[in-house]
């Protein structure tokens, strides 16, 4: 999604660039949140479906990685 660097606030409304709105399909619901980086607008999706498989990774043993975190950190530092 196109990143908006600045938005205007006019009479209590947030004015978004036309190009941004055109980038959304009609009737798309959006989620708006404010975080430390500014105003974030994302098309509304099912968060569970968005989360599942969103990181493509090589086969890995997550349990082992969580277990061995401390040892791995130590071995990297010293």
């Amino acid at each position: 999604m196109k990143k908006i660097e600045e938005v205007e606030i006019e009479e209590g409304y947030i004015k978004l660039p036309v190009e941004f709105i055109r980038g959304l399909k009609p009737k798309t619901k959006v989620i708006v949140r404010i975080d430390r980086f500014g105003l974030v607008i994302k098309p509304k999706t099912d968060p569970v479906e968005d989360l599942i498989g969103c990181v493509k990774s090589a086969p890995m043993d997550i349990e082992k990685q969580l277990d061995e975190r401390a040892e791995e950190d130590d071995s990297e530092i010293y």
Partner: protein
Amino acid sequence: MIVRFTDKLPKALYLDSSVILNATMTGGRFHAECASFLRRIRDEGVRCATASLSLDEIWYILIKNKVKHLTGQFLVKSYKSNPNSILSAREDVERITFDLLMMGLEILTVDLDADAKDFLWDCKLLPRDSVHLAVALKHRFKAIATTNPDFMSTSDLVDVYTCNPKMLR
């Protein structure tokens, strides 16, 4: 009691970071099982929570694997020479954290107390796991979902939901 992911779900469930990470990362050994489990939780409206400690674990694994993938180096080594290296995982971390909050996962404050310490010895748990158990019990959760076999020793205190065959034997 050790319970299968496919068994009847409780009304409230404490989610361990291992389940979230397996569902998120396609290479996780239990990716398919954890993905299906999260969908069941959503469909059945089960109340879910985890400790803020889980966010630390999730962020760490996401950053670690991203840095390793991009630089071929272990996280801490890469970070010490170039702290900016962790920025490569920013999009994933932001997205997943946002999704977890949007799906209604409650983030419980970690309040270290005597119980967490006792679980080290009583259940032979590693410190982080004993904190997870203490937080879950303090908030009256009677079931934990995890793929971490170390939680088998807690099955007298809580129902342990899992898909890890090592725990289901």
